[in-house]
């Protein structure tokens, strides 16, 4: 027993916290990458995540595309959709204040959510995850605690979410911080004019970055499809929290976003045990405290 709570119960709650953190990580990563490169606050990120879930459902319902193929195809389709948005709309706003990008993407949210609600209703659609992921497994904790009776129930699908998110986060971090392409990206963020002088196609880089960020949101949408009802508003409920996560971590910091996401998932989990009514404000309370003490965020650079 820890804090009057059985260990198996606490372990599972923390596990759920990590799984929620995994969603925060995937989404805040995309936001951070987009903000770092384009200086655009992508308010449409939640709607793009929702579209990922709807695309997964549509693929299965009308084209017979399995969950596994969706994991690959949906991010590609969403990425192309993102590229289209960037080329057609966002690129006109780079010289203007942040606010214009935010307003444009917010407008996109209203249009996308409205169209989806009109087409599919607001109650949500059912999606059956692959049988492989159904149910849960028991995991013995006796090796850890010495007590034969200590065990933990691990829902398979949620375990998969954590694994998939961690792999993708590490891959993204590696690509940006450790590869040549990533170094172009970082350099173009610092000084686009100079990088262009070296013969790097900066506008293309920007377009691809936005497409990649949107693809990440689409991937998170596929993961969510197996977990919850697919509704037109699933993104807007989540994205506000993700924005708070990004602010706490520090705008534009890749590693900061990832670490903050998982940590806040855990904080939320503990709040859900201690005082459930506060579970969706705790992150905002932390955001206020961080903004008061470190305005650039925990991992952000002071401007």
């Amino acid at each position, binding site marked *: 027993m820890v804090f009057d709570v*059985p260990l198996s*119960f606490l372990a*599972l*709650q923390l596990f*759920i916290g990590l*799984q*929620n953190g995994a969603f925060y990580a995937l989404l805040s990563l995309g936001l951070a990458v987009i903000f770092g490169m384009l200086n655009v606050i992508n308010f449409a990120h939640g709607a793009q995540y929702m579209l990922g879930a709807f695309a997964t459902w549509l693929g299965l319902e009308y084209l017979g595309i399995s969950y596994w193929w969706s994991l690959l195809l949906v991010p590609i389709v969403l990425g192309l959709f993102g590229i289209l948005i960037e080329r057609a709309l966002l690129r006109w706003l780079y010289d203007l204040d942040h606010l214009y990008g935010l307003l444009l993407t917010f407008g996109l949210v209203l249009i996308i*959510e*409205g169209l989806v*609600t009109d087409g599919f*209703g*607001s*109650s*949500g*659609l*059912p999606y*059956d995850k692959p049988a492989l992921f*159904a*149910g*849960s497994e028991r995991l013995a904790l006796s090796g850890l605690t010495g007590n034969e009776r200590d065990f933990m*129930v691990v*829902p398979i*699908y*949620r375990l998969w979410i954590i694994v998939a998110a961690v792999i993708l986060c590490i891959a993204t971090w590696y690509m940006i911080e450790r590869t040549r392409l990533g170094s172009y990206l970082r350099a173009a963020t610092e000084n686009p004019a100079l990088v262009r002088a070296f013969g790097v196609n900066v506008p293309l880089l920007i377009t691809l970055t936005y497409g990649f960020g949107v693809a990440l949101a689409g991937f998170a949408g596929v993961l969510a499809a197996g*977990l*919850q*009802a697919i*509704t*037109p*508003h*699933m993104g807007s*409920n*989540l994205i506000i929290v993700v924005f708070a996560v990004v602010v706490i971590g520090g705008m534009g910091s890749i590693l900061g976003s990832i670490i903050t996401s998982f940590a806040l998932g855990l904080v939320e*989990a503990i709040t*859900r*045990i201690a005082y*459930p*009514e506060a*579970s*969706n404000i705790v992150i905002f309370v932390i955001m206020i405290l961080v903004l008061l003490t470190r305005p650039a965020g925990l991992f952000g650079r002071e401007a």
Partner: protein
Amino acid sequence: MLRKTLLATALGASVFGASVFGASVFAAGAMAQSAIAAELSDDMVKIGVLTDMAAVYADLSGDGSVLATHMAVEDFGGSVLGKPIEIVSADHQNKADIAASKAREWIDTQGVDMITDLVTSSVALAVQEVGREKNRITMVTGAATSRLTGESCSPLGFHWAYDTYSLANGTGTAVVKNGGDTWFFITADYAFGHSLEGDVSNIVKANGGEVLGTIRHPFPSSDFASFLLQAQASGAKIVGLANAGSDTINAIKQASEFGIVEGGQNLAGLLMFVTDIHSLGLNAAQGLFMTTGWYWDLNDETRAWAARFEAEAGKKPTMIQVGTYSAVLSYLKAVEKAGTDEAGAVAEALKSMPVNDVFANGGTVYPNGRMAHDMYLAQVKTPGESAGDWDYLNIVRTIPAAEAFQDPAKSGCALSQ
């Protein structure tokens, strides 16, 4: 600046409202003396459908309720006392403040005589107060809280389709009598959830059961894992879901991950609509008990009405949408009977007429504004039993009106003491 302007508008509106109220009370008195009938304000009757057009409850009410209102006006003949009937509608976004200011605007500047649907309990409570203050009829079909005809009742407020008491009475009683005598509640943290949880708790205790614990979740929520685990840890036989719409859907969907039903606990969805079952799929929903005020497949009349609705809306109606049809039809009949659209006179007429239409058979309106009619305890079919889309429910029991709804004398409403 904006705040000041809003405040000034609100103050102005309420002063104006008070004078309208005074004037119409005077008019009613004058009318009673001289017995002049056929007095309609603005030479028409205007009905406002205030609902959730795009968020979580849009499928249960929303456009479908507007359609049902049009159907009622059409079936009534398109005019009342020789004057036209108009319909307006608006989205309240499930926010009580938006709903209340829209209601004031409608009444003050557009001559709206009656407001209906009002899904979401916090919205319904706020708009019923606006109706009381401005002398207008409100007919709640969407919201559930029994406070509307209890402590917060209004002489001009009517509650039509269902309420938390009748849901609690239907599902709660049935479950306890089947041996489900220990409960844990997962409750949406706002007026509706609290009201439903309270009413079910009373029923459980009255039948000798016990409530082991309660958790209040933010509205809306998409992840119920943590709350479900706490329910599981409580060891209660029944996990009562005192929430609605996508919250209930997500909770039921996620319960299967943790083996809650396999572990011997059962879920009770305390407010479920046919659209929720459609959204969950029968695989996830089969076997659930639910209480409903109406189902499309009750008899030839309901099937015909539902087919007419489906031809326009592309889906079967919920009890809220049919309830809105019934409320609007009853309102128009009452205006005709009273010979005026003055709220006090119409309210009196409504309370004196039985309700007989596709929604209710022999319904009566209690002094506290509650329309009592038969409710149905239903069980969700298995995929094998269902003949296809929308064939979802077996009606297990018809609960007679007098049993389904609370005795008005015990409701806590001052009008029915």
